[in-house]
């Protein structure tokens, strides 16, 4: 049943979304690809849309996937499921479990979880970059390579040179314009 799948799938994401917005991306990718709810391409498109709209990426993706699979009710369920664990856990921590959260064993578990999620996010980012390098023909495309190199130079070069980091929306807009130019010709 799709409603139950959506609820449980996103509840799992919500429970393990340590490490901020980006930490949730590999988990959502996992759930969404394993159920076959979205293709890799449409997921990446939606990440970009989420970056450019209000709200945390995790919530945006839940709403989108929920709607694409099961309409308004699906969207509401998936969003509810993804937010529920953060809601319950923060209340529990402040209402009753502050001592338990500060307990060395809990902190030790978090000490294992945190570097793990960072490794997962790094691997996900690199895999996405690599898979984007493949052009329509299946081999590494010249246009993809050029776009990747140029955007990487802008993203990572701006801070040391201009002393100002590029915002996600700015990079996405630049990439959109370049995409239209490079693939339009």
């Amino acid at each position, binding site marked *: 049943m799709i409603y139950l799948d959506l609820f449980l799938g996103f509840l799992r994401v919500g*429970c393990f*979304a*340590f490490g901020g*917005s*980006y930490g949730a*991306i590999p988990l959502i990718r*996992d759930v969404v690809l*394993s159920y076959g709810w979205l293709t890799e391409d449409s997921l990446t*498109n939606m*990440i*970009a*849309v989420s*970056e450019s*709209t*209000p*709200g*945390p*990426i995790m*919530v*945006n993706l839940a*709403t*989108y996937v929920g709607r*694409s699979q099961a309409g308004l009710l699906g*969207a*509401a369920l998936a969003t509810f499921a993804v937010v529920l*664990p*953060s*809601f319950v*856990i*923060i*209340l529990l921590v*402040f209402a009753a479990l502050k001592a338990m*959260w500060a307990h060395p064993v809990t902190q030790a578990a*978090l*000490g294992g*979880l*945190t*570097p*793990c999620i*960072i*490794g*997962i*996010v*790094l*691997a*996900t*980012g*690199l*895999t*996405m*970059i690599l*898979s984007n390098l493949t052009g329509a023909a299946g081999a590494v495309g010249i246009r993809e390579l050029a776009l990747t190199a140029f955007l990487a130079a802008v993203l990572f070069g701006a801070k040391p040179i201009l002393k100002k980091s590029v915002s996600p*929306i700015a*990079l996405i807009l*630049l*990439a*959109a314009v370049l995409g*239209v130019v*490079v693939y*339009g010709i």
Partner: protein
Amino acid sequence: MKKHIYWELFQTFFKIGLFTFGGGYAMIPIIEDICAEKKQWITHEDMMNVTIVAESTPGPVAINCSTFVGYRQAGIAGAVAATLGVVLPSFLVIYAISMFLDHFLEITWVANAFRGIQIAVGLLILRAAIHMVKLMEKSPFSWTVFGCSFAAMAVIDLCALNFSSISMLLVAGVVGILFYLLGRHREGGRKV
């Protein structure tokens, strides 16, 4: 009177949710400004406290903070009102976008734009990961877990294996606890 505070919480967080792009940390200074400075619902110290705890609990820090402020101000119902308020704008915006995105993507130049955008997304995730590595605790244990997780995930992704990253996180949590217990055991051994 009671009803009034729920509505005010909802309204306030709805506005915060509506005007914060990209989510996450961008919301924190805005929440602090409105809730600690203007409305005086919580103190700056509370805000700092909750941000620190929120960083180690699941979910976006902004949502955690909203839930907390609502709870402080008006109990569980207040927490629901604030959380609903902060989530609803992104829900509505994404819902509206998702109704026409697929048709929109059928236009050639839009599809081309998104081919460029996909490349940007991978790079943005890479930058976020590098930022996270910089903030990571630099102990041999952290580096080991980080390295193993990275290698495992890379193999899983590149070979398209079916292994959930959540199971990996569970393993990492257990390893963290075992490492801690082992360390304590050793210390205990030395003392005796």
